[in-house]
């Protein structure tokens, strides 16, 4: 028995010269909330379409619950897709839309109605069954599409940019509801988005794709704090990228020579002299006197501009004696005037070392 709900083995997809996916292998556990994250053209939608059965992979196989479904039509797969444009049937009522999958499975009419009503209640649309599709709002259409998909109890639910067309407030709310829905159904959800905040707030596992390859895969916190590649570091939110050379290797620590002076990092074991790239998140750069024995001072800097953003102050600062311009995220409760002089420091464990990509 295979322990994986979904297993993608060596899947490639190319359209003539254009390579959309390059030898991807992935496995997801049952009941996992997976987010396929990436910029447009990363292949995330192609992968979802291959999982749903709407696109045939050029090479490789897809297994669900140990069964090879690579050549199975969408109707027979234990997957259901929630389309980006919802793809509701405009000539049917909300309840008829939701019951459609059951009707195709020849579920008796009465049972069909009950199950459709239950599914609608589950997505918070109790009593909306008789409405026409064009009589409900965008957010409600999204819920109808969800209800229509979950009513047939798929093992794997595929969501293509499900929240893309909704405004911010409803999007936040739906993120929470999607997560709760996934928990209560205990199905595997595979959700495609280009929005890294959405991915972090909803995923058990993030699969970060770029140009048809996996850049990183893991829990949101790990992907954010310890990105596996330069692309992952820059895609998962703001960061400062600094080039450096390994100067000394110590006990669980690496000392690096950088334009900011000597910086200590705790991750990675590198040979002396190796060229590396450092990523330091804006919120990891702290202002004031270095506190704690572990702190690594970065020298003093001059604030250039400050933007108050409610939860924090977003600043640019130039480090003395160099032309490194850093992005900082300083606490909102202490006012920082422009042109202010500050001391910067960082915790070695928050300095991310990334292998220099050879090319």
């Amino acid at each position: 028995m295979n322990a994986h709900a979904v297993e993608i083995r060596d899947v490639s997809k190319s359209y003539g010269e254009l390579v959309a996916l390059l030898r991807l292998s992935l496995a997801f556990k049952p009941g996992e909330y997976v987010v396929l994250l990436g910029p447009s053209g990363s292949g995330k939608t192609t992968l979802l379409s291959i999982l749903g059965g709407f696109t045939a992979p050029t090479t490789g196989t897809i297994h669900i619950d140990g069964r090879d479904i690579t050549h199975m039509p969408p109707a027979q797969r234990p997957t259901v897709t929630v389309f980006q444009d919802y793809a509701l049937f405009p000539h049917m009522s909300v309840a008829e839309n939701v019951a459609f999958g059951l009707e195709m499975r020849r579920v008796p009419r009465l049972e069909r109605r009950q199950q459709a009503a239950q599914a609608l209640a589950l997505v918070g649309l109790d009593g909306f069954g008789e409405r026409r599709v064009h009589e409900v709002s965008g957010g409600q259409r999204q819920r109808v599409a969800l209800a229509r998909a979950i009513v047939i109890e798929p093992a794997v639910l595929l969501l293509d940019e499900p929240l893309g067309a909704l405004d911010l407030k409803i999007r936040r709310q739906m993120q929470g509801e999607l997560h709760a829905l996934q928990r209560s159904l205990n199905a595997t959800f595979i959700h495609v988005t280009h929005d890294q905040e959405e991915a972090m707030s909803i995923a058990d596992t993030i699969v970060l794709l770029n140009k048809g390859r996996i850049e990183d895969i893991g829990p949101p916190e790990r992907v954010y704090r310890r990105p596996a590649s330069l692309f992952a570091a820059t895609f998962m939110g703001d960061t400062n990228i600094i080039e450096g050379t390994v100067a000394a290797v110590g006990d669980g620590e690496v000392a690096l020579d950088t334009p900011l002076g000597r910086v200590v990092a705790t991750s990675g074991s590198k040979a002396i002299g190796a060229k590396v790239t450092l990523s330091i998140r804006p919120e990891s750069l702290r202002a004031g006197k270095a506190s704690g024995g572990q702190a690594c001072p970065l020298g003093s800097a001059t604030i250039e501009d400050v933007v108050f953003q409610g939860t924090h102050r977003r600043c640019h600062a130039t480090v003395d004696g160099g032309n490194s311009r850093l992005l900082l995220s300083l606490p909102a409760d202490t006012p920082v005037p422009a042109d202010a002089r500050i001391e910067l420091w960082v915790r070695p464990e928050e300095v991310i070392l990334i292998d220099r990509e050879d090319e």
Partner: protein
Amino acid sequence: MARTRTPLLSWLLIAVMLVFIYLPVFVLVLFSFQSGDLPVPPLDGPSLKWYVRALGNDRLTGALWNSLVVGVLSSAFATGLASLAAYGLFRHQSRAAGKVRMLLMAPLTVSYLIIGLGLLFVFNLSGFGRSLLAVGIGHAVINLPLCFAIIYSQMGDHLRNIDNAAHDLGAGDFATMFRVIMPIMMPSILAVFCLSFTLSWDEFIIAFLLSRFEVTLPVMIFELMRAGLTPEVNAAGTIVFAISFAAAVTAAIAVMFRGERGR
């Protein structure tokens, strides 16, 4: 604020165009109410006597009935086949499907006379002969490419995911077609049916070439005219025009309904 004035010449041009388009129809309709024996000025009347004569003429009413039957059945056939072909080629897009699409639409460029002669030749050779059925087949042949082209053009990208969703939820090709795609396309299909009907209803050359004893209305009117020009021809022509007009209006309403329902 300076009001833009439409130059007199533009108005004149529009007037000339409208007169050019509508005057013949107007004259035809007007002189159908003639009470004298000839459809020429002066108009004395109005009178419905030629309508009574036309509707009392068994050959004319028989032809009218034939035209209705041929129009409805050939249009239903053409629209049905065109819908099936359009959905099939919408669903399976490939280079070969693209060629099939071109082949289906290419007859639009062939004149009715050539198609009519070709059909006549084939029907004679095969022993099928000329008949009202042959006319119906002829009309289905000429209308199918147009019906297909219009229905296919209306199957936009918004239908793509709807089609995928229906299949994803467990519907086969036929269930998807009849429960989902066709109902959504119904206003377009209805409009195409009406258009096809008006074309069949007015069609002369193919009907003339392929009919024998039983003829359609345009052919019968042609025969009447050979016997001599009377206001009876005008009355019959007015009836033809009225029914065409009704079908065109129905098509327009169907298209408007499609627009209103939105996506």
